[in-house]
């Protein structure tokens, strides 16, 4: 049933107003505080008004729904007789007199009940007030309203306080401004202290914020004073102001930032704290602050603060400031670099364990790690190892930021040692459930294993191969993961002591089927290119020949070759009239696919059954056609695969029938040694059945063309004396070339050739063969092919990776050409 009569506009009053009874308040009991007294006064004022509820008449409350709890009793609205009935005390037990008495008692104590509900703090101790509650689980209306009315009371109290504060501040501020500008330092100090106190309370704080002259005066006082306490108070004030938007704006507009940046050199720790937190708030929320801090030299100061301080919270805020300033701003990153930032940041990562600090620092490192000048500095300062320390941390955000940073840095860290722990963690992280983690780990491994045989060996030793194969299987068609993982495997399967083990391991962990599957759609060209390269490496291991054949690798590779080749042909015919088309598809040139696929077939063709398959796929015409390609690398792999195929009689015949002799003869004169050597080898093998004098003429021609650059030799060994073991050897070309090498060597020692020659590194004589595109022919700087295997343990570390040895010719020559 209804409670009070609640009209919309007079609600609160009504709810609280009760009887005009004498006040039970005794002011002398009240606390001395002015405010409370005022509140009391207000309370009592309200008591005086008569709200009319006590009239005892039954009234309806129109605004309250009356689907009610019939048993609910309320005060003052019920007919006494009805009350009696509801109390169920037995209508007989009370006579009218008693009822009246009870009523009167309840009336008299009503205000007490209301007061107790609203202002419990004002009740004297131990007073018993008769309650109207009949049933324990049915609160009376007063009880139900007690909490909301208390809240309301608090709000009004606050308002009163607020208004007071605001009034006070508004009156006081002009005075304070004058005092802050005073000559006398003591006066300034007092004023600053007062302002600081005012700034702690909300109303006065707002008054301060709204007065630009006050802010200016504060900043000036802060900057000019020699008294450090004044500075502290002023800084503290600004700090308090910086929690509000208007405060930030006011500080910014009054030129607070340069002054705050200056404070960063203060010896007093509290001043430092105030300054850095205020700057932090400005950087976070105030537009234009970043530029101002940069211009005021904030970056250098903050980096130097990293050195001096040990407080982890302070460091966390400072590094977060650096992150905000450096994000997206190249110049800031360079300034941080110049101030020694990378070293400090790496030191922090190594020395502290407070998660928030590690996280903010890792974010700064991440932002810096995309800057090509910062990258080497971070790596040299030990950044990779420092970041690796936290890869096992339980904070996901920290791990993720470390991984991103590592990935950005990884291409600059390939020459680093002591990455063993990192490599181990990365292999472990490959089995994480988080896709981002796996993607990053794969990418980092791919880069770190590139051209670094120590890392390669390490990864193999910690079961990296198995982990990578599993990752590839689980990744499905997510190329973000499979591509770097395949690249990593490709690196791991060539050119290091454990390469052979790795080649076997891929097969033993059931990697071959899934790899061949990746040659098919929906794989895009970059992934396909990587897989083809990996298959080529895997084919170096004879045990893989049969499985690769059984999984249908070769037909698919040939398909890809044909498609890529047709694409290049089409483009060549279009461009013969217009400007040359660069022909990138998905960032991959079709010429690279041609080279990769033919290279893979070259190695696969070492095995006799595979050769039969290749012949059956009718590739020989295409290979012969590729001999005409203008790109040396393609010529080389085409000649190479033909060389293998020519080992069989049927192969040799088919090659000859396709008219390969002419282009091969042409290629004998190639500047590229690998091309020339393979061409010679094919011609030689094709000549097996020819009459003797043909053979002799051929060998003369071959040797003369191979030795064309060398005027000094008198009696070159005849070509056919070279041992050219055939299928029973794994690497016929290497043996042949080995003996070529020795012939060169022989030539050297016999003829005493001077410094112009090939005396440099054996690399020259071997470079043409199976070394991938390390020389810059055909297409510009190397992309990721330098890892194609050579079975010998040839050390390529002294090749300039960007360019590789020059294309086959004497590197010491320099000549010009008339055009």
């Amino acid at each position, binding site marked *: 049933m209804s409670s009070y009569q609640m009209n919309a506009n007079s609600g609160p009053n009504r709810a609280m107003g009760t009887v005009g009874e004498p006040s039970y308040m005794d002011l002398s009991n009240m606390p001395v505080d002015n405010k409370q007294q005022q509140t009391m006064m207000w309370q009592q004022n309200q008591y005086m008004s008569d709200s009319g509820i006590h009239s005892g008449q039954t009234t309806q409350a129109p605004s309250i729904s009356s689907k009610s709890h019939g048993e609910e009793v309320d005060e003052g609205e019920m007919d006494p007789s009805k009350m009696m009935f509801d109390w169920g005390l037995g209508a007989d037990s009370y006579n009218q007199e008693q009822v009246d008495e009870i009523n009167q008692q309840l009336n008299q104590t009503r205000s007490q009940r209301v007061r107790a509900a609203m202002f419990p703090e004002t009740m004297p101790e131990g007073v018993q007030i008769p309650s109207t509650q009949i049933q324990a689980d049915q609160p009376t209306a007063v009880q139900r309203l007690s909490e909301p009315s208390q809240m309301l009371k608090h709000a009004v109290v606050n308002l009163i306080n607020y208004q007071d504060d605001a009034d006070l501040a508004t009156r006081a501020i002009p005075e304070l401004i004058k005092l802050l500008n005073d000559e006398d330092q003591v006066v300034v100090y007092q004023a600053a202290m007062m302002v600081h106190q005012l700034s702690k309370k909300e109303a006065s704080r707002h008054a301060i914020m709204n007065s630009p002259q006050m802010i200016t005066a504060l900043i000036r006082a802060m900057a000019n004073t020699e008294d450090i306490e004044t500075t502290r108070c002023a800084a503290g004030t600004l700090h308090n102001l910086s929690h509000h938007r208007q405060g930030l704006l006011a500080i910014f507009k009054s030129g607070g930032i340069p002054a705050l940046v200056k404070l960063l050199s203060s010896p007093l720790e509290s001043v430092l704290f105030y300054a850095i937190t205020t700057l932090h708030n400005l950087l976070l929320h105030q537009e234009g602050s970043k530029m101002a801090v940069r211009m005021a030299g904030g970056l250098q100061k903050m980096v130097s603060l990293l050195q001096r301080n040990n407080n982890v919270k302070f460091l966390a805020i400072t590094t977060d400031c650096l992150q905000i300033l450096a994000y*997206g*701003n*190249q110049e800031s990153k360079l300034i941080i670099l110049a101030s020694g930032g990378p070293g400090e940041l790496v030191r922090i990562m190594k020395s502290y364990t407070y998660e928030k600090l590690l996280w903010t620092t890792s974010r700064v490192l*991440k932002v810096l790690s*995309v800057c090509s000048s910062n990258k080497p500095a971070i790596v040299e300062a030990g950044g990779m190892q420092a970041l690796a320390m936290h890869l096992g941390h339980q904070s996901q955000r920290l791990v993720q930021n470390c991984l*991103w940073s590592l*990935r*950005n840095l*990884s*291409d600059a860290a*390939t020459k680093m040692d002591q990455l063993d722990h990192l490599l181990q963690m990365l292999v472990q992280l490959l089995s994480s459930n988080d896709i981002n983690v796996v993607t990053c780990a794969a*990418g*980092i491994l*791919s*880069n770190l294993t*590139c*051209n670094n045989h120590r890392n390669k060996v390490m990864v193999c030793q910690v079961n990296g191969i198995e982990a990578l194969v599993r990752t590839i299987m689980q990744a499905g068609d997510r190329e973000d993961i499979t591509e*770097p993982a395949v*690249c990593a495997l490709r690196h791991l399967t060539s050119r290091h002591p454990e390469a052979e083990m790795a080649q076997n391991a891929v097969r033993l962990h059931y990697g071959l089927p899934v790899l061949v599957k990746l040659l098919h759609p929906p794989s895009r060209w970059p992934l396909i290119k990587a897989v083809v390269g990996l298959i080529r490496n895997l084919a170096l291991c004879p045990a893989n020949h049969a499985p690769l054949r059984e999984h249908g690798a070769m037909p698919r590779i040939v398909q890809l070759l044909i498609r890529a080749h047709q694409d290049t042909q089409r483009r060549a015919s279009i461009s013969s009239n217009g*400007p*040359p088309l660069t022909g990138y598809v998905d*960032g991959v040139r079709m010429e690279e696919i041609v080279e990769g696929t033919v290279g893979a077939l070259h190695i696969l063709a070492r095995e006799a059954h595979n050769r039969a398959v290749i012949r059956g796929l009718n590739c020989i015409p295409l290979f012969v056609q590729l001999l005409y390609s*203008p790109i040396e690398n393609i010529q080389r792999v085409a000649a190479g695969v033909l060389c293998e195929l020519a080992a069989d009689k049927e192969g040799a015949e088919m090659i000859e029938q396709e008219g390969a002799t002419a282009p091969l003869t042409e290629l004998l004169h190639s*500047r590229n040694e690998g091309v020339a050597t393979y061409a010679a080898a094919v011609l030689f093998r094709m000549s097996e059945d020819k009459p003797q004098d043909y053979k002799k003429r051929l060998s003369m021609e071959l040797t003369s063309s191979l030795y064309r650059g060398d005027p000094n030799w008198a009696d070159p060994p005849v070509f056919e004396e070279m041992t050219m073991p055939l299928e029973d050897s794994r690497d016929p070309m290497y043996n042949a070339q080995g003996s070529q090498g020795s012939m060169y060597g022989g030539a050297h020692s016999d003829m005493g050739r001077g410094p112009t020659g090939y005396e440099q590194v054996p690399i020259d004589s071997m470079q043409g063969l199976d070394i991938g595109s390390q*020389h*810059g*022919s055909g297409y*510009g*700087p*190397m*992309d*990721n092919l*330098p890892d194609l295997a050579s079975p010998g343990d040839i050390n390529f570390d002294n090749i300039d*990776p*960007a*360019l590789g040895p*020059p*294309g086959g*010719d004497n*590197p*010491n*020559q*320099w*000549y*010009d*050409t*008339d*055009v």
Partner: protein
Amino acid sequence: MAGHTAGEPLECYSIPIVLEKEQDIDQQGNPVLEPDGKQRYRCGFRIGGGIDQDPSQSPQGYPDKGVYVTFIHDNSPASRCGLQLHDKILQVNGKDFTVVTHKQAVESIRKKPVLKMLVYRKGVPQLPKSSNQMGAHTQFQAYNQHVPQQQYNAQQPQYHQQY
């Protein structure tokens, strides 16, 4: 600009030059033909250099592996078009010349009858710091080379923007 490492990003002012080849004729005034019968054209200059050559062996002492003009014949299209001795050729008909072999350079030049080149000449002012400044209305135009793909994939994050 001098001593630029092939493959690194490069930004510098360059001079655009258009060279129209002339028909090559011998002393009697007869046109010289290519082996396949086509008319041969000549530009009238010599080029040296390339990434497969060693610049320290060059008599002119070129600082890097770019392609340089080593000689200009008198009374030739090269002498008439504004090309100068020791110009470094940056681009020919859209093909970048800072990472080419000698042979590639020669082939590219021989391909077309008209060459649209961009060359770098020593003494040309340095490009100012901010890359937004374009001196396009002067004789010089800023030449921007894209960073070629690094040897190992330099991973760059995709999920938070880069500068």
